[in-house]
């Protein structure tokens, strides 16, 4: 850092400075006083800033007070972080993300909406932690396989004026997290506020252009050193070591620690911590439609892992207990975030502490865990180190989905409707989209019709001119889909997700186990194996259904059963006397028939409990975990790894799965509420 580069902005010229930010029609957003707090809002002049005010924060408390009289009493940034930071500007709580409409011709048009009003924004007063969080958001929302178009468009022309904190709150711990108080990233200009003005440092071309226009004079050396001393004092006031070392390892090793129950007694799962957190990015889609149902808009809305609906799927809820929700938040934030994004999810801003209505302090909770932790394994990479963690992540947890994911939807037309059971229907669709036709067994599509939520549906067969979807009526959207007629149109996003690794089965015995609707995503696997039968050794197909009437693809399976190069076994959970086939759970079929375990590859799909039992039994029979593949069901709102709903451990089920090997999942299948 070259001292000569720094300029001085006298306080009297703050209005000019703000006016220069507004040049070119920019909206200027900065801290203002409102309803007892300092929040980020539109500002026009220096008077809009909370000059003379400061904030004191403690767990569950943010108190506004007057600065003492004196030279510093006109300061406008003499407080630590504002209540809402800059997240509402770059990642608003509600934005339109998709429109789905029935066209006059009867088609279905889906449009991905970027920022509706692309007005440029200048942010005045972003703090180091805010900007570290912005960098995290960039990684999550832009640098992944899929890019959030709204975020990218807001981010593109953002002009950011950072301010280095002259005071630290009792809840601040950016020094521990290595994100502040010095502003090192994300700002075009950095200000340090002194009593009579600001030391200004430009860090980008845009920032340089701004200060050049203002004709500022260089800051005197004593002024510069005063500014440096101020931020150093802030750092010293915070101290380091606010949270234990190796937080990631600590959390992952203590998933069943009794402390989670203790937290759950205090935590009211209000979700405030997640919504004030500058890096939390989970969103849900709220569908808005007119009463005619011909057009709808999906509104991307802040969601939280503390809500019941967050982990809700058709069959139930993965995290019904509040303790599971708190654990999910903390282990993701400080732990698996490293695996997914190569960084901590925490930037040390302390908002989750200050704005917790019951005053839970994550620093205390992590320390308590550390004080009574199980011994941490030495082999895991240390937390805090991006590089080391990333290297470890690459070995064990590298995402294996596609490198880039398109968000667009394409149109497909229903040409045939085949009822399979009382509640399940297969739709034959045609489409001309080459991307869709290139889909692989195990992949899925997001299916859009106006006025309904957009569910993920596995592809149950590929055709040269289209594909099939087998849909069980489990909710309103799927129920609507099962009642479509030939001629109806749909919007499809996909194919998405990691396919079944058929190459892993080549030359080996193949065991395919499908339970209930789980047979649908396995059908393309069976198709592929039949097509290239000689590339596989013995092939066995085990199918479970609730009752004989709930069997899927009955004629097809019967036809397979009479082939002499396949073994097909079907069992049902219960049946009347007219059923002469097998009754019992699917694992009971294995005992007498699987003999060649170590040489077999298994593909398993069904309810999670059934897959767990199947994997256990097949494992006992000798099939290695790295050759057992299964698909996980989690709530998916976007299907492309942006909404966060299907996050599980270090993965997004939609993007890194839904197909995983048992080896990859390890013991996670067994832990309740993960």
């Amino acid at each position: 850092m070259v001292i000569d580069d720094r300029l001085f902005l006298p306080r009297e010229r703050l209005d000019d400075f703000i006016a220069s930010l507004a040049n070119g029609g920019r909206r200027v957003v900065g801290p203002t006083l409102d309803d007892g707090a300092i929040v980020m809002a539109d500002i026009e002049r220096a008077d809009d800033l909370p000059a003379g005010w400061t904030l004191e924060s403690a767990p569950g408390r943010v108190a506004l007070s007057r600065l003492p009289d004196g030279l510093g009493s006109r300061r406008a940034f003499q407080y630590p972080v504002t209540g809402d930071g800059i997240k509402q500007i770059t990642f608003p709580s509600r934005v339109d993300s998709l429109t789905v409409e029935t066209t006059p011709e009867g088609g279905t048009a889906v449009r991905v909406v970027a920022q509706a009003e692309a007005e440029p924004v200048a942010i005045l007063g972003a703090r180091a932690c805010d900007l570290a969080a912005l960098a995290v958001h960039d990684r999550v929302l832009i640098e992944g396989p899929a890019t959030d178009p709204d975020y990218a468009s807001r981010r593109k022309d953002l002009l950011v004026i950072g301010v280095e904190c002259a005071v630290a709150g009792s809840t601040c711990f950016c020094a521990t997290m290595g994100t502040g108080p010095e502003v090192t990233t994300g700002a075009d200009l950095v200000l340090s506020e002194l009593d009579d003005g600001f030391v200004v440092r430009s860090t980008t071309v845009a920032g340089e252009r701004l200060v050049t226009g203002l004709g500022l004079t260089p800051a005197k050396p004593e002024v510069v050193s005063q500014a440096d001393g101020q931020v150093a004092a802030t750092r010293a006031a915070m101290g380091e070591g606010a949270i234990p070392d190796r937080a990631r390892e600590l959390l992952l090793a203590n998933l069943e620690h009794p402390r989670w129950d203790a937290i759950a007694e205090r935590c009211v799962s209000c979700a405030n911590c997640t919504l004030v957190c500058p890096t939390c990015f989970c969103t849900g889609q709220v569908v808005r439609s007119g009463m005619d149902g011909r057009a709808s808009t999906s509104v991307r809305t802040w969601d939280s892992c503390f809500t019941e609906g967050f982990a809700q799927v058709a069959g139930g809820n993965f995290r019904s207990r509040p303790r599971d929700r708190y654990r999910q938040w903390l282990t993701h934030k400080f732990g698996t975030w490293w695996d997914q994004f190569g960084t901590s999810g925490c930037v040390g801003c302390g908002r989750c502490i200050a704005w917790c209505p019951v005053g839970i302090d994550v620093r205390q909770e992590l320390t308590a865990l550390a004080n009574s932790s199980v011994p941490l394994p030495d082999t895991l990479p240390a937390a805090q180190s991006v590089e080391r963690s990333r290297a470890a992540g690459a070995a064990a947890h590298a995402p294996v989905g596609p490198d880039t994911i398109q968000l667009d939807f394409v149109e497909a037309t229903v040409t045939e409707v085949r009822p399979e059971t009382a509640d399940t229907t297969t739709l034959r669709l045609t489409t001309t989209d080459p991307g869709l036709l290139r889909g692989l067994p195990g992949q899925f599509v997001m299916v859009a019709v106006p006025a309904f939520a957009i569910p993920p549906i596995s592809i149950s067969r590929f055709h040269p001119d289209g594909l099939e979807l087998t849909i069980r009526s489990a909710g309103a959207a799927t129920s609507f889909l099962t009642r479509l007629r030939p001629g109806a149109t749909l919007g499809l996003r996909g194919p998405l997700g990691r396919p079944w690794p058929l190459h892993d089965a080549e030359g080996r015995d193949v065991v395919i186990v499908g339970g209930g609707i789980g047979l649908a995503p396995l059908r393309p696997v069976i198709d592929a194996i039949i097509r290239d039968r000689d590339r596989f050794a013995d092939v066995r197909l085990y199918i479970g259904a609730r009752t004989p009437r709930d069997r899927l693809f009955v004629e097809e399976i019967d036809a397979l059963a009479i082939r002499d190069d396949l073994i097909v076994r079907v069992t049902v959970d219960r049946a009347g006397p007219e059923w002469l086939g097998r009754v019992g759970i699917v694992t009971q079929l294995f005992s007498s028939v699987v003999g060649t375990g170590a040489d077999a590859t298994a593909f398993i799909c069904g309810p999670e409990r059934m897959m767990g039992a199947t994997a256990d039994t097949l494992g006992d029979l000798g099939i290695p975990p790295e050759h057992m593949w299964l698909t996980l069901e989690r709530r998916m709102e976007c299907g492309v790894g942006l909404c966060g709903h299907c996050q599980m451990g270090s993965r997004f089920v939609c993007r890194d799965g839904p197909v995983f090997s048992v080896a990859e999942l390890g013991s996670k299948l067994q832990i309740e509420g993960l």
Partner: protein
Amino acid sequence: MDVGVRAAVAIPGHGPAPRRPRIGVVKFASCDGCQLTILDLEDDLLEIAERFEIVEFAEATSRRSSGPFDVLLVEGSISTPEQVVEIARLRAEARRLVVIGACATAGGIQALRTAAEHEAFREAVYPVPAYVDSLATAHPVADYVQVDAELRGCPIDPRQLLELLTSLSVGRRPQLPDQAVCLECKRRGIPCVVVVDGQPCLGPVTRTGCGAICPAFRRGCYGCFGPREAANTAGLVAAFGAARPGVDQLGMSAVDIGRLFAGFTGAAPAFRSVTVSLGGRPPMPLRPTLASPPETLVDGPPAWGPVDASPAHPTESED
């Protein structure tokens, strides 16, 4: 599988256009505010009237029907023996029965009276106890009949009502999330009144849907949408009871905390249990507590009296 009640909309390939759903609106013990919310959907009211056949809505139309209904919206709590019979009859006439508002979903504030108070009250007050027939306490509709959906709130939220009607019209599930008020509060960027002012707020344990109105007006939520799922009332009570440095209003007494929960949805089990354990529900007087008791009974049709100025009238205040 038949889902929802489809309104008259024909989309190619999406099946034939069905008839208009028959909708009814009825009330039991209540303030009429929830059904008024229907009339407050000014921008959509005429379209609603086109998409639905309104066959019963005494507040708005002279046309009457006893059913059958595709959708019946029910306001108010069940408070008299006649109402118990009536709700059972209506249930049989309704394909979908949707209860609207805190009275219908939780009994309303009138449900705070207890059976003992009610009996004592009847015996103490009524010369002829049969004269006024009311149940020991007011009940939510679901105490008597199966309920298909509910709109919470005192009153219900117009956006949620529109969402319900829209979802009925297009045949989807209404999006009525069971989350804390806090989510909406934070989405709106409202500074938390507990944190900023030390005001008690039931937002963390109350279901969202109102749009976080009270915090937006810088006061604590008073729970009119009732308990959310997994409401950790004990955690909140502990936090309100604990005095925090610099936060004057917290460090509340048990009774004051209990009274917070004894509001418009105070009879909902999750809230009632707090009041029962902490106290705070003001006791219902066993005898009338009127500031000025009523005069004696009169009989016969009234007739207009003289309108000329009468010197007999008192014109000056006594105090």
